[in-house]
């Protein structure tokens, strides 16, 4: 049950998949789990659909974690988000409104092969685990792989891209969780230019980092990725934005280098509680204000 599963520790891929299966069995009114394809090594790519089921049109928010294998706090947050949503559906008006009016498509582990490898072989693995006859190296950076000219997209990226294209009319926001730098980024990443709906996106980001800071005083920088971080192309956020999803964000979660990828489990709770505030803030902002 929700109460027995420990959300304040890191879980292996198998644990996470069992947890999703369990939620699917025990929370039928709000949860549906399905697979959108298979990874390079044949593992299922599970999505957790969260929200009160309805035949009527519902907007949707996509949340993915674990594009980069070693960034374990990402998948931990995706699980935390699902738990919070389910636990507070009856008690928190804002959460009830979101789950009644929206679907959340949550992908707790995007790069399943890499994540598994980071548990079993190399804690600091980043990329996928594909092999390519043209190149000697193993795997690619799944966040430099979205519609780029230098290589084909990975099976995992294709599966997610296909899903997002098919649900483009519903998916209004794309949120991707990474680590570490304590930043909230929005497009563009591949060029220095201002997005057409900059006004609304900037306000949403500003409010989100303010809400996040209110929890434990943690400061996030926010802004266009190309300016706030560096220019990089082929990432999922830019692809989502250019393919019709008007609000695309990438979170770089804690910390800023003291632990780096090795964020101790005792910091999972504060990191996730503050990030929840930011995500709820963005979602409610988009539901209300933005056209």
């Amino acid at each position: 049950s929700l109460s027995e599963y420990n959300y304040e520790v890191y879980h292996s891929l198998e644990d996470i998949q069992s947890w999703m299966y369990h939620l699917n069995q025990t929370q039928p009114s709000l949860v549906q789990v399905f697979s959108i394809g298979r990874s390079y090594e044949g593992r299922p790519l599970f999505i957790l659909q969260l929200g009160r089921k309805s035949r009527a049109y519902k907007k949707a928010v996509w949340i993915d974690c674990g594009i980069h294998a070693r960034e374990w706090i990402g998948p931990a947050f995706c699980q935390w988000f699902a738990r919070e949503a389910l636990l507070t559906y009856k008690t928190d008006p804002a959460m009830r409104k979101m789950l009644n009016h929206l679907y959340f498509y949550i992908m707790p582990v995007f790069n399943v092969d890499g994540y598994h490898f980071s548990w079993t072989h190399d804690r600091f693995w980043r990329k996928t685990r594909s092999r390519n006859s043209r190149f000697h190296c193993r795997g690619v950076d799944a966040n430099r792989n979205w519609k780029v000219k230098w290589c084909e997209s990975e099976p995992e990226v294709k599966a997610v891209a296909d899903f997002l294209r098919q649900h483009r009319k519903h998916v209004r926001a794309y949120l991707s969780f990474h680590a570490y730098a304590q930043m909230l980024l929005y497009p563009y990443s591949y060029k220095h230019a201002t997005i057409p709906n900059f006004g609304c996106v900037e306000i949403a980001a500003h409010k989100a980092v303010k809400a996040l800071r209110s929890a434990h005083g943690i400061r996030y920088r926010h802004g266009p990725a190309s300016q706030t971080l560096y220019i990089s192309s082929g990432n999922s956020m830019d692809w989502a934005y250019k393919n019709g999803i008007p609000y695309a964000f990438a979170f770089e979660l804690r910390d800023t280098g003291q632990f780096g990828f090795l964020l101790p489990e005792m910091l999972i709770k504060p990191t996730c509680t503050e990030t929840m505030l930011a995500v709820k803030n963005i979602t409610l902002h988009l539901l209300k204000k933005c056209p």
Partner: protein
Amino acid sequence: HPYGNRYAGDKVIRLTPRTEEEVFAFKNIYRRLQVDLWQPSSISYVSEGTVTDVHIPQNASRTLLTFLQGARIQYTVLIEDLQKAVENENNLQTQRNRR
């Protein structure tokens, strides 16, 4: 020891190249030693003022640190013993479960 103790003696250091010369020097040694960048995600993103975190394996530690000192590139040690940090990431219960 998780991961077969493979990170024993490894470190993570932080440096911020201040000049074009320092950037060029660091990129050269990076390509020679093939160390793992924690941030930014690629060596091509390193330029003047870029906060750069590097995971140095034990066998490259002396070479890289000596080089940085010789090139007067300032650095700080973020993680002195990476294997210990990997072990401390999980609380005791998780470590028992994993064993």
